[in-house]
């Protein structure tokens, strides 16, 4: 474990987890998908997150295949309803 990242949760995801922010350590070379699977593997309530959520890395929408860097901020974005 040498890849610390910050995970942010909003709206329905925050309500689901009861947390708006988690600090995680992932293996070097981990992708966003690895982060999602790490979380979902923890069981309830984390397995309530979708397998393929929309995410933003450092405030930019990113595919699940994006590799993570040290200190990245990964926001889980529930379906948006602005306007």
């Amino acid at each position, binding site marked *: 474990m040498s890849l610390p990242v910050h995970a942010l949760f909003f709206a329905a995801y925050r309500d689901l987890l009861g947390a708006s922010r988690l600090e995680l350590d992932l293996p070097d070379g981990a992708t966003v998908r690895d982060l999602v699977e790490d979380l979902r593997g923890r069981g309830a309530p984390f397995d309530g997150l979708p397998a393929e959520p929309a995410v933003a890395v450092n405030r930019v*929408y990113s595919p699940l295949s994006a590799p993570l860097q040290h200190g990245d901020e990964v926001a889980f974005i529930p*379906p948006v309803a*602005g306007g």
Partner: protein
Amino acid sequence: MIQVSVQQDPIDPASVIEQVGHEQDGAVLLFVGVVRNHADGRSVTGMRYESFREMAVDVLEAIAGEAALHLGTDRIAVVHRIGELRIGDASVAIAVSSPHRGEAFEAARYVIEEVKKRLPVWKKEHYEDGSDEWVAGAVPPADGLLGGDG
């Protein structure tokens, strides 16, 4: 001249227009989204808007920038409100000023459609029976900030 804001304060449509108004332009368009008192047949008593605020500001700037690039007008102001809103409150206001009306209509329309597709904002409806619910929204594209073919 692109100005965006994600704010708790009530939206004043007149001041949003003022942000883009200019005597060199011939057309000014203002779109205001208003909290409705019903949704899918249920009576709504209010609405709570939340955002990932820092990112929402970036996304609004990107959307307005795309509209400016594609449609030839760079006088665009967008304000999105967050927090507890009442029925009739403005949730979003988009103002565009342009020499030509066609561009103004298209730019404002582009901005509101993109806001609904990818602005990181969520809303929880409060119903008459005291319950509330997150509104089912749109899944933003993974390349959202760069826009589709708009």
